[in-house]
């Protein structure tokens, strides 16, 4: 496969040709290709995207999570934003994992940038990145005993007793 210019169609085709059923779902959002893959395939599929000569997704722009409490069994989405500098192309990869067992392989072996971003995702969502060399909180206080962006936790500071809830819509 050789592609002069990358676009959503030929990248998606290359992915489905190579990985078949492992491409669970795909859609375009704001002109950007989104692909869902099984959580246990993240290393080999993203590794392939990075090393493939005609794709060269060598830059991990962002790595984060989203909490969807109503999707039972797949409450947490881990989202990877990839960027190919040489081919001027960006895309997103999503893996869904359950909130009961929020585990996924770490990308630190592929991208050094994943180190801090995975720590942040762990800090806020409690995602366990297996294989991460130093998975501890990065932004919140070390003493914090929960993962604050999970939606079961209130956003507000819960130690305040001087606020009239009716003024704050809650």
């Amino acid at each position: 496969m050789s592609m002069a210019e990358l676009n959503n169609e030929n990248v998606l085709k290359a992915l489905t040709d190579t990985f078949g059923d492992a491409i669970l779902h795909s859609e375009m959002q704001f002109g950007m290709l989104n692909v869902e893959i099984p959580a246990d395939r993240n290393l080999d599929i993203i590794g392939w995207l990075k090393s493939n000569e005609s794709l060269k997704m060598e830059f991990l722009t962002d790595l984060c999570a989203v909490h969807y409490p109503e999707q039972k069994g797949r409450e947490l989405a881990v989202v990877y934003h990839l960027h190919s500098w040489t081919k001027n192309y960006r895309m997103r990869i999503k893996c869904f994992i359950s909130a009961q067992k929020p585990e996924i392989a770490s990308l630190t072996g592929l991208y050094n940038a994943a180190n801090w971003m995975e720590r942040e995702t762990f800090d806020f969502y409690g995602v366990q990145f297996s294989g991460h060399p130093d998975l501890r909180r990065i932004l919140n206080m070390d003493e914090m005993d929960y993962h604050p962006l999970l939606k079961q936790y209130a956003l507000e500071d819960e130690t305040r007793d001087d606020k009239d809830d009716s003024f704050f819509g809650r």
Partner: protein
Amino acid sequence: MVKMVEAPEGVEGQGFFATSLDKVIGMARANSLWPLPFATSCCGIEFMATMGANYDLARFGSERLSFSPRQADLLMVMGTIAKKMGPVLKQVYDQMAEPKWVIAVGACASSGGIFDTYSVLQGIDRIIPVDVYVPGCPPRPEQIIEGVMKIQDLARNENLRRRNSDEYKKMLESYNIETL
């Protein structure tokens, strides 16, 4: 034009002037407060204007900003204090020598401000005692100066024994701050 501070009340005669030690020391302290700017966000920008030539906090004897807590008299906390920063702020306060004053500039430092959220300290008075609160988001430089002038009043009229009193020690202990 240089404006001199007025002498405190006292008895004056040829070649002597008598007043109480409290008043002289109060006057000296009030007019040479060295502030330590603990500026963490937008309110800190307003403080820069306050120190600048237009408003010029130096007119009140606070020309010399102290970036070491050990030589500072007045801790000016200007900005949002994240809970993670709380221990740092407390350590800075701890390292200041008595007598020391604290001014909370802006809604964030006073109460957490708009940041009613898990990561922000809901007012620095949860970890250190505060003498003067300046409201506003951000307060104008005039308001910050007004706050500093309130601190001057406190310094000028403070009893020299106040910081040795049991009441003061109890207050510090309620913040878990060690007293000597």
